[in-house]
């Protein structure tokens, strides 16, 4: 009988656990040729039931569930006279997630753009999750803009936001 009590109590307590994270980067980043690069986040806004990897390029999930994830990236021509495109996609356990890629062009006339990718994903405990970019050239990457004016916040090059959608645990 005690086992049933403890089992139900454990289910109920675990069901109420929350999971979310928001990390971001304050540096310009350039993708490597062909394979691209996982984006690095040096800063943490919020973190619960997630862990940022020691290399700071992916999140480690600690709570199984369905998650809403969104990343915002500032693709940019990092040199004068550059035109080309940048693609970004999510990776789960170091494998690309299908249908998660977005691509945007930057040109000399419009050297900075914004990509936001919202996505729903199922994660298990221990899963690793990150964002990879690739581009048509070394001088097309993502950019960080430091305090455009006194009244403004810095423009981060990359923000990754994730939270558990189903508040209750799946059994």
């Amino acid at each position, binding site marked *: *009988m005690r086992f*049933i*009590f403890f089992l*139900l*109590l454990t*289910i*109920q307590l675990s*069901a*109420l656990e*929350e999971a*979310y994270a*928001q990390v*971001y980067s*304050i540096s310009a980043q350039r993708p490597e040729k062909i394979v691209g690069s996982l984006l690095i986040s040096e*800063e943490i*806004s*919020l973190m619960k039931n997630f862990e940022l990897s020691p290399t700071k390029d992916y999140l480690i999930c600690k709570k199984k569930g369905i998650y*809403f994830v*969104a990343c*915002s990236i*500032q693709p940019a021509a990092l040199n004068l006279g550059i035109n080309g495109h940048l693609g970004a996609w999510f990776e789960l356990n170091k494998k690309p997630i299908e249908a998660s890629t977005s691509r945007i062009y930057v*040109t000399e*006339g*419009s*050297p*900075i*753009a*914004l990509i*936001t990718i*919202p996505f729903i994903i199922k994660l298990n405990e221990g899963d690793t999750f990150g964002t990879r970019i690739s581009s048509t050239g070394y001088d097309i990457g993502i950019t960080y*803009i430091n305090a*455009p*004016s006194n*009244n*403004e*916040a*810095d*423009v*981060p090059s990359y*923000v990754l*936001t994730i*939270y558990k959608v*189903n*508040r*209750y*645990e*799946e*059994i």
Partner: protein
Amino acid sequence: MQNGIPRVIQKSRNFEICAQDFNQALANAEAIPVIHRGNANTGISRFLNHKQYKYLSLLFACTIPSLLHCDETVPQDQVAYVEISSEKTQIPNPNEKSLIYAENVSLLKNFEISKDRTSLTCKVDGIYLIGSGTQVGILNPRVSGYIDSWFELNGAPIPASNSRQYISQSAEVALMTNAFLIELKVGDVIRTGFSASGPDIGIVAFTNLPNNEPDIVSFGISLFKIY
């Protein structure tokens, strides 16, 4: 116990989309009458006294909605969301901090919007997701430049909330979208600031579109409490 589990199951609107859990609930519900009847020779009731029934019932009543992903256990005073938008073209003032206003209110619960329509005041503590869309445009065809847009909490810019989008003669309109998590306390005020690199750059709305196409708003923002 008597009204617990059956009541929750009947009232829930989530069962159809949770088929597996629903089956599980049905399986659990079948066990409930056994407990309710107090048949000493049937099922787990053999092991329980009256007091244990009560505790077990309470645990079931709390647990089953969890298994069903049923949100009826969330008190309504803990629910908070807002969606507002603007159908006006807005140009930031180059000499002072400019805030985006939203004259249209689609949804509003446990938030309050200021009279000038620039500020949202939170009424429930929690973690919130903010989603916003800003339609950036140039008002003069020979202009190019950029718009910055960021969120403010209690009058101060929120770190890492700023975004920049360039527009030019070859791309006169662009869309900036953002998703952001933030912790809010009761009384906290959220606003959206914006600035531009030149006088003829702002956020633009498109109305009276053909073929019953809905208006394109210059700005829309949604907030809702996730925890």
